[in-house]
């Protein structure tokens, strides 16, 4: 169902662009992970401060609200690059060759339409909270500390824009595979059978448990 998929590489322009973008995406994902760790520290500080010094972290909820888009959205493109967003592959898993690339091209184009629209929509959402004329450029703020919300809202269109770049590369990759009739195209996550994918997942965990 879910899963990690293999992405092949070679010396072509497409593959080099793929790897360049992947470096950026990996940094974004790491920042998301750091955010999750920061969230944990924040809660420990809040509990500790309250129990030990009667000084709970002021505006704890506000800080969570600010951090969550970073954790939950910033690295979205990295997950797409590796085919990590879940799908039902009971049908595409049966397809081969051009039929497969056509199906992938079609669904990836659907995702591209959605994400391009959401870059616009989430930018508008950010834009309503942003005002050059206002103090701290803020026209929307958190409930307790009155932190300006625009930085948290800006994360979304930025992450979605990177995602659109990724989707353009994937459309290029699938399109190329379709036209040339390739077996194993570069720069796109390849469908693995559930078994291969489980093996990859298990491998990962074995590494951990050593």
């Amino acid at each position, binding site marked *: 169902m879910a899963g990690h998929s293999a992405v092949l590489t070679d010396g072509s322009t497409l593959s080099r662009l793929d790897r360049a973008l992947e470096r950026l995406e990996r940094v974004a994902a790491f920042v998301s992970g750091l955010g999750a760790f920061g969230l944990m520290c924040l809660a420990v500080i809040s509990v500790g401060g*309250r129990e030990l010094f*009667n*000084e*709970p972290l*002021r*505006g*704890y*909820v*506000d800080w969570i609200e600010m951090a969550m888009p970073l954790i939950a959205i910033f690295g979205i493109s990295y997950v797409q690059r590796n085919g990590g967003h879940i799908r039902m592959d009971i049908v595409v898993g049966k397809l081969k060759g051009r039929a497969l690339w056509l199906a992938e091209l079609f669904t990836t184009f659907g995702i591209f339409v959605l994400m391009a629209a959401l870059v616009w929509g989430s930018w*508008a*959402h950010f834009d*309503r*909270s942003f005002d050059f004329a*206002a*103090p701290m450029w*803020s*026209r*929307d*703020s*958190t*409930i*307790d500390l*009155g932190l*300006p*919300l625009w930085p948290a809202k800006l994360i979304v269109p930025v992450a979605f824009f990177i995602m659109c770049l990724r989707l353009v590369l994937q459309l290029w990759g699938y399109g190329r595979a379709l036209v040339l009739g390739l077996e194993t195209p570069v720069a796109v996550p390849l469908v693995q059978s559930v078994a291969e994918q489980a093996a990859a997942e298990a491998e990962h965990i074995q590494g951990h448990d050593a």
Partner: protein
Amino acid sequence: TEWNVSLWGKRRAFTEHVHKLAELVEEKTDGEFTMNISYGGLSKNTENLDGISIFAFEMAQFCAGYHPDKNRAITVLELPFLGVNTLEEELAVSQAVYAHPAVANEMAQWSAQLLMPTPMPQYNLVGTGEPRDELAEFDGMRVRATGGIGRAFEAVGAVPTSMTASEVYQAMEAGVIDTASFAQHAHLSFGTINEADWWTANLNPGTVNCPVVVNMDAYDALSDAEREALDSSIPAALDHYLANYGELLARWDSVLEEKDVEKVMISEEELDKFREIAGTPTHEAWIEELSAQGLPAQELYDLVMTTLEETRASN
């Protein structure tokens, strides 16, 4: 015409005027103009004003304190210790402020037009442990209070602790907080009253202001008959709201008795001390800050004060 109305939570005293309005409008237009009231289905509560501005729906309710930067002018109504004591006074000052051009102007930036207020009683405290009726006893108290009220308690040494409303009951049970400030209907619906040992009957530290707004284009697109039906129904809707909330307030004393919650009266002397520390300086700071941002802050503040005096005089 069918309007979508975005509210949140559940139907409660807080939303009764909207239901009454919908009912009256439908009646007066023989079913030509209906309102489809949605609780949370159309938007998140803190984004109702955004939804109005993009015209996703025609009518909505929001609270000024959720996002002061979106609606700076009406935050004057959320200042602590304004001296508002009754729902009628709250209604009068809200309507006076809503009629001010600076307020209308700020709302117009969101394509919004203020339709009517949601008069809320003062956010008094329920608390656990020994009753706190002197200023000195507020020192170190952990209180769940947001915005201006939170800052007022902070000024007298209390520790405001933030959490979502749905976590408040548990936080109180857990001793994470000692007290929580809400309106009566919220103390009932969040269950804080069940944990409480005492209730401050006359602290009256302030309240939140939650107007009902409509999208300007939607309002303009109404036929003359529909607009007349809408406008003429507002007073009756507010009367219904006041009567309904009044019943809840009248029942409040028996609720306290039933739950064995002590009613704490704070002396005028202590209240004066409180206002001196947490009231007046906050007001002055607010006027200064918003004047600097180009709003007629002093004018809005004076408007509240004179309206309050006039309302008292007329009763």
